[in-house]
C-alpha cells in the first residue's frame, strides 16, 4: 500500500481496493486465471503505473494495455511522410511535442530539425495558424495527430483558416478513431478480454454510445473512466460487479466530464471537416476499416496531402517492417508485456527509442520502464 497514502482520499482508496478484492475472490479470479481488463487509453496506462494500481489491486486482476496512445500506433511511413513535407523548401512544419521523437525509417522529426528543416513544436494547432498569419510567405503545415480528443481542435482550426482565407496553412491529417481497433481486438481469437476501461476524454467528445457494440455484440462490459486513481479503482470495481452480476453494459464513471451524447460543437466540426477513410494503417494492428479520417474535398485547400501529394491518401501506405528484433506489435495487442521484448531496456530506452511505445509517456513500454510492472521479470517489489 505504499502509494495509497498520497491519494487524495486514502480511506476511500482502501475501501475500493478491499471491495475489488472481495468481488475478485467471489468470481474466482486468480493470478493464474486472471480477469483481464483492457484500459484503452494511454493516459490511463500512465496513471495505472504511476499510482501502482496494478500492484494495489487483487492479484487476479490483470491490466492489458490498449492501443490508445496516438503516437504509438503511428506507422513509420507516416513519420517518413511528415519528414518529407518538412524538408520541402519554404515549409514550416509544426507538431505536438509527442511526435517529435517517434522514429521513422530514416529519421525522426527531431533529427530532421537538427539537420536544418524548420520544424517547430507547438502546443496547439492554433499556434500553427497564428504562425501562418505572421509568416504569409511561408507554408505552415500542422501534423494532425490523435484520437477524438484532439480531432475537434484541428477541425475548428481548419474552419477558422477557411473563414479567414489563410492560404498558407495546411493540416497533414492522420487522425484516428477509438472504436474500430477495439472491434479488431475483440475479433482476435487470441485476445481474451473480460472487460474494458473506456477512455475519458475521447468520450467527452463522442459520448458513450459509440461503445454500445461492445456489450451488445460481444457481451463485454465497458466503464468510461476519469484519470484520478479513485476514478480508475472505481471503474475496475464497476467492471467486476458487471461480471459478477452477469451484466454487460456501457457505464459512465466520469459523468462529471463525459455527457452521454458527447460535445455537439466538436462533433459538428469533425463531421464538417473530416470524412472516414475506407481504411487506415495502424502500427502493430495493420489496416483497420474506417479507422482514420481524411479532410473533405471542400477543405482541400488546407489539406497537406492535396497540397504536397504526400500521405496515406496520395501514396498508398507501403508496409514498413518494425525495427529488427523488436516485438512492438505483440506488446501493442497485449500478447506480451514490454519486458517480454528482447530490446526492452537494452537497445530500446526512452533516450534511444526503437519503437514508439517507448517514446510517449502514454506508451506501455515507457510506463514499464519508468515504474516497473508487476507481472514482468522487472517487477520492482
Amino acid at each position, binding site marked *: 500500500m505504499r502509494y495509497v497514502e498520497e491519494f487524495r482520499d486514502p480511506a476511500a482508496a482502501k475501501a475500493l481496493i478491499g471491495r475489488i478484492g472481495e468481488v475478485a475472490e467471489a468470481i474466482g479470479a486468480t493470478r493464474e486465471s486472471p480477469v483481464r481488463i483492457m484500459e484503452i487509453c494511454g493516459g490511463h496506462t500512465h496513471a495505472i503505473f504511476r499510482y501502482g494500481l496494478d500492484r494495489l489491486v487483487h492479484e487476479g486482476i490483470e491490466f492489458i494495455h490498449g492501443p490508445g496512445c496516438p503516437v504509438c500506433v503511428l506507422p513509420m511511413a507516416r513519420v517518413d511522410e511528415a519528414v518529407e513535407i518538412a524538408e520541402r523548401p519554404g515549409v514550416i512544419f509544426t507538431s505536438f*511535442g509527442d511526435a517529435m521523437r517517434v522514429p521513422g525509417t530514416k529519421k525522426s522529426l527531431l533529427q530532421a530539425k537538427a539537420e536544418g528543416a524548420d520544424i517547430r513544436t*507547438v502546443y496547439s494547432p*492554433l*499556434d500553427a495558424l497564428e504562425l501562418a498569419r505572421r509568416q504569409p510567405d511561408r507554408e505552415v503545415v500542422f501534423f494532425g495527430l490523435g484520437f477524438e480528443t484532439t480531432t475537434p481542435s484541428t477541425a475548428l482550426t481548419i474552419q*477558422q483558416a477557411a473563414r479567414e482565407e489563410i492560404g498558407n496553412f495546411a493540416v497533414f491529417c492522420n487522425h484516428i478513431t477509438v472504436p474500430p481497433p477495439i472491434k479488431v481486438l475483440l475479433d482476435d481469437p487470441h485476445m481474451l478480454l473480460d472487460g474494458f476501461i473506456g477512455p475519458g*476524454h475521447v468520450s467527452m467528445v463522442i459520448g458513450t454510445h459509440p461503445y454500445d457494440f461492445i456489450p451488445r455484440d460481444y457481451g463485454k462490459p465497458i466503464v468510461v473512466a476519469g*484519470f484520478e486513481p479513485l476514478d480508475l479503482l472505481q471503474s475496475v470495481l464497476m467492471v467486476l460487479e458487471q461480471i459478477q452480476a452477469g451484466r454487460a453494459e456501457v457505464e459512465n464513471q466520469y459523468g*462529471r466530464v463525459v455527457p452521454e451524447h458527447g460535445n455537439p460543437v466538436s462533433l459538428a466540426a469533425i463531421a464538417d471537416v473530416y470524412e472516414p477513410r475506407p481504411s487506415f494503417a495502424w502500427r502493430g494492428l495493420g489496416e483497420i476499416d474506417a479507422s482514420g479520417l481524411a479532410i473533405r474535398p471542400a477543405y482541400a485547400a488546407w489539406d497537406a496531402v492535396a497540397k504536397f501529394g504526400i500521405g496515406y491518401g496520395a501514396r498508398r501506405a507501403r508496409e514498413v517492417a518494425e525495427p529488427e528484433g523488436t516485438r512492438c506489435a505483440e506488446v501493442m495487442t497485449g500478447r506480451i508485456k514490454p519486458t517480454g521484448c528482447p530490446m526492452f531496456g537494452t537497445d530500446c530506452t526512452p533516450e534511444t527509442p526503437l519503437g514508439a511505445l517507448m517514446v510517449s509517456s502514454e506508451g506501455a513500454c515507457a510506463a514499464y520502464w519508468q515504474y516497473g510492472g508487476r507481472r514482468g521479470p522487472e517487477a520492482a517489489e
Partner: protein
Amino acid sequence: MCLGIPGRIVEITDAHRMTAMADVSGVKREVNVACVAEGDPAALVGRWALIHVGFAMALIDEAEAAATLEALRHLGEAQETLEQIAEGARALS
C-alpha cells in the same frame, strides 16, 4: 496530448473567433471556447474548463479543477503541458 489541463477563463479576447484568455496554473494562454460556449461567450468568464491543446472542451467546477490538477501534477503531465505552452509561444517568434 490526451489528458488536458484545467484553466480558468479570465477574459474573452475575441468573441467572433471564440477566443478567450485562460489562466492555466498561473500561465496566461489564449484558448478557443467554441466547444463550451452556449450563447454569449462572456458568460464563461470566471468558469473553469478542461483545456486540450488550446481548446476548452468541458466546463468543470472548481473542486474538480483542483483535483484534476493534483492528479496531473503527480503524473508529471501538468509541468509537461506548461512547458508545451511555453514552447508554443516560442515557436511563433
